[in-house]
C-alpha cells in the first residue's frame, strides 16, 4: 500500500487547494535524510473538509506545513485558487498566505504568551495593513465574540490566563480574522480535554458553515476526523493509503492499514468485545522506509510483490481509492480477528 498516484484527484472547477506530488524531506541531526512525505497528492473542494489521519510521525504535519510553505516542500506543487505557491517568495508569498490559515495542535504554544489576546487576534490585520485602527479594533472584538469569548474580559488578558480550550478559540479567531479561503487544522483538539474537545469541534463546524470554509483537518483520532470531515485521507509513513468519504471509510476499509486503524479504536462500550491487536510492530523509520509498499512490514496480507512494487493509488470501489496490491473487498473488510491471525 502506501503508494503514490493521482487517481483520487478530481478535475472539478471548485477545487480550491490542489497539492501535487508533494515531497518533504528533512536532514536529520547527523545529516541523514528523513523521508517525511513522499509524493503525496490531494485536492480540496470549496466548502469541503478533508480529513488527514495517520499515526504519529506519518507526515501529517509535514503536509500541512508544506501547504503553508512553512517551510516550502522539497518538491511538488501547491496551488491555491490556481496560484502556485511553491517557489513564491517574499511579499508575493506573504500576500497569498492570508488566504491560507492554520490552527495548531498545542493551544498554549501557538499563542505568544506575552501578548494580549486582542493583539494576537489583530496581528493578521496589522501585518497586511490597509485597515484603520478603529476597524481593526472593531473586527477584533467581533471575532473574539464569534469564537465564544467575552470581548470585554478577554481582550486585555494574556494567553496564560486562559484554559486550553479558550486558547484554541483564540487561535481560531486569529486565523479567521483574515477571512481565509482554506483553514488547515493540525490536530487542533488532540491537546484538549475530552470535555473541551467537543466545544472546539462544534465551533469549527459552526465556523465552517458560517463562512463556507474549506478545511484540511488533521488528527490521529479517527472518531474526531470522521465527525468533522467529508472526505478522509489515510496516511502511512509519508504516503497515502486510502481515500474515501468519511461515512464509508471506516465502515468498509479497503486498505489493510485502514482496517487495522479502525480495529484499534477503543469503544466506550463495555459490551463491545475487546479485539486482538490488529497490527504488530511499530512504524518503521522514515529515515529508511521499506521498499515497495511501505506498509508491508506490518501488513497481514503482504506478499512478495509488496516488497518489489509500490502500489499506485487506484479506485477500488466507487469513490474509494486505495494504494494496495490486495485491497479488501467490502465484505472482507469488515473488521475481523481472523485476518490478523491468518498471517
Amino acid at each position: 500500500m502506501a503508494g503514490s498516484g493521482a487517481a483520487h484527484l478530481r478535475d472539478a472547477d471548485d477545487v480550491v487547494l490542489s497539492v501535487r506530488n508533494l515531497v518533504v524531506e528533512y536532514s536529520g541531526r547527523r545529516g541523514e535524510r528523513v523521508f517525511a512525505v513522499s509524493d503525496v497528492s490531494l485536492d480540496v473542494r470549496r466548502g469541503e473538509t478533508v480529513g488527514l489521519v495517520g499515526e504519529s510521525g506519518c507526515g501529517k504535519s509535514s503536509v500541512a506545513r508544506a501547504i503553508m510553505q512553512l517551510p516550502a516542500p522539497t518538491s511538488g506543487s501547491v496551488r491555491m485558487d490556481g496560484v502556485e505557491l511553491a517557489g513564491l517568495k517574499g511579499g508575493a508569498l506573504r500576500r497569498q498566505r492570508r488566504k491560507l490559515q492554520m490552527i495548531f495542535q498545542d493551544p498554549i504554544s501557538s499563542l505568544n504568551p506575552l501578548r494580549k489576546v486582542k493583539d494576537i487576534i489583530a496581528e493578521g490585520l496589522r501585518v497586511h495593513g490597509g485597515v484603520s485602527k478603529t476597524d481593526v479594533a472593531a473586527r477584533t472584538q467581533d471575532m473574539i465574540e464569534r469564537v465564544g469569548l467575552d470581548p470585554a474580559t478577554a481582550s486585555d488578558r494574556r494567553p496564560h490566563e486562559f484554559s486550553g480550550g479558550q486558547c484554541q478559540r483564540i487561535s481560531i479567531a486569529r486565523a479567521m480574522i483574515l477571512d481565509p479561503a482554506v483553514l488547515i487544522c493540525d490536530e487542533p483538539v488532540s491537546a484538549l480535554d475530552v470535555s473541551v474537545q467537543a466545544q472546539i469541534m462544534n465551533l469549527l463546524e459552526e465556523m465552517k458553515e458560517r463562512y463556507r470554509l474549506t478545511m484540511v483537518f488533521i488528527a490521529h483520532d479517527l472518531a474526531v476526523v470522521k465527525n468533522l470531515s467529508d472526505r478522509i485521507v489515510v496516511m502511512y509513513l509519508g504516503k497515502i493509503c486510502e481515500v474515501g468519504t468519511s461515512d464509508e471509510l471506516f465502515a468498509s476499509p479497503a486498505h489493510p492499514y485502514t482496517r487495522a486503524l479502525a480495529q484499534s479504536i477503543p469503544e466506550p462500550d463495555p459490551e463491545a468485545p475487546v479485539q486482538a491487536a490488529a497490527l504488530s510492530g511499530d512504524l518503521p523509520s522514515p529515515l529508511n522506509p521499506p521498499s515497495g509498499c511501505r506498509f508491508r512490514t506490518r501488513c497481514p496480507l503482504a506478499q512478495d510483490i509488496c516488497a518489489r512494487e509500490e502500489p499506485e493509488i487506484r479506485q477500488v470501489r466507487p469513490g474509494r481509492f486505495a494504494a494496495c496490491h490486495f485491497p479488501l473487498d467490502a465484505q472482507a473488510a469488515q473488521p475481523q480477528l481472523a485476518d490478523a491471525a491468518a498471517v
Partner: protein
Amino acid sequence: MSIGAQPREIVADSPAASPGPLLEVQNLRVWFDTPRGLVRAVDGVDLRLRRGETLGIVGESGSGKSVLSRAVMKILAPNARVLPGSHIRLNDVDLATVSRKQNKHLWGVDLAMVFQDPMTSLTPVLTVGKQLTETLRYHLNLDRTAAHDEAVRLLRLVGIPEPEQRFHQYPHNLSGGMRQRVTIALAISCSPKLLIADEPTTALDVTVQHQILNLMRDLQEKSHMSMVLITHDLGVVAGRTDAIAVMYAGRVVEYAPTKRLFANMRHPYTRALIDAIPKVALPSHTRLASIPGRPPVIVDPPPGCSFAPRCPSAQQRCLAETPALEPDPQEPGHTSACFFPLGTTDGDAARKRNIAAGVTAAGTPVAAEVVL
C-alpha cells in the same frame, strides 16, 4: 475479571486469607504548596480494589489521577503534602507506617507502576538490560547470569522481538511502543501484587495502544495481579476494567462496576463526558454534546460541588455544599457524589427546573438539547 486468583502473600506478614481489599484508600488528601496558593490536587479520595481486579480511573487533565497514583507509590514531588487523616492501606498495612527501608521492598515487589510517557520513563543513560537486571538483582538477589536470563525472559514475555539484542540497547534505540513494553517488563519484573498504570498508552499511537493494552490485560490475567488503569479515555477503560472511578477536581465523583456505570450513569459529569466523545459509529458532522465552561481550578477551590458551574442540573445546594460519595440506594456498589443524581426523581426534577429556567443555579445557560 479473573476472580479465582490464587491468594498470594502481599506484604510479608499479611495472612493470605485476609478478606479485606488489596488496596484501600481512605480520605486521601494531597495538597501542593505552590507560589500560586494551595493546590488541592487530591481532595478526599476513597477507593477500594480487590485482588485480581482492575480498577479504571478516568478524569480530565488535572483531576488528580497522577497525584493519586503517586501518593500510593509514595513518589510525590517534594512540595506535596499528604494531609493527616489520609490512609492508604495495601493489604491492610498502612503505607504511612512503613519504614523507608521496608518501603524499598514494597516498591517494585508488591507495588509497581507504569508511567504515561515511555519516552521519559526509562533512564536514558543505562541500557535496557542494566535497568532490568539492577532491579532484579536488588530485589531478588539474583546473580549476574540469572538476572540476565530473567531479564531476557521478561523482554520476551512483553513481546519484544530479539530480546538478547535489545538487552544491550539504550532506550533511545527503541520505538515508543517498544519502550513502553520495556517499562512494563520493569514493572512486572518482581511479580508485583498491584500494578498502577498511569495513562500507559496516551502517548502511543492507536495501533500500538491497542497492542499494549492487550499485553497488559494478558499479563494481568496470567499473574493475577491487581491493576489500576488510569486514563482520560473512557474507551480505554470500558472493556478492560472491573470497576471505574470517575475523578473530577481531585475527587471521585462516581464509582461503580464498569458495566453498571455505563448502563446507569448517576453523576451528570460522567454522563456529559460520555456524550462529549465523538464515536466512529455516529455519522459524520454529528453535533456533539459539549460540556460548557472549562475544567475546574483547584487552587483554593470555593465550597460546593466543583462541577456545579458546568452542570446542567446544578441547584443552589450544589453551590453551597460539597456532596459526598454515597452509595446509590437502588444499586449497591454504585456510588456517586451528587445531590441530584441522574435517573433519580430528584435529579430529573432538578434538570427540568433548569431547562425551564434556561439557566442553572450557577448561571450557566442550559439548552434543551444538551439534556439528551
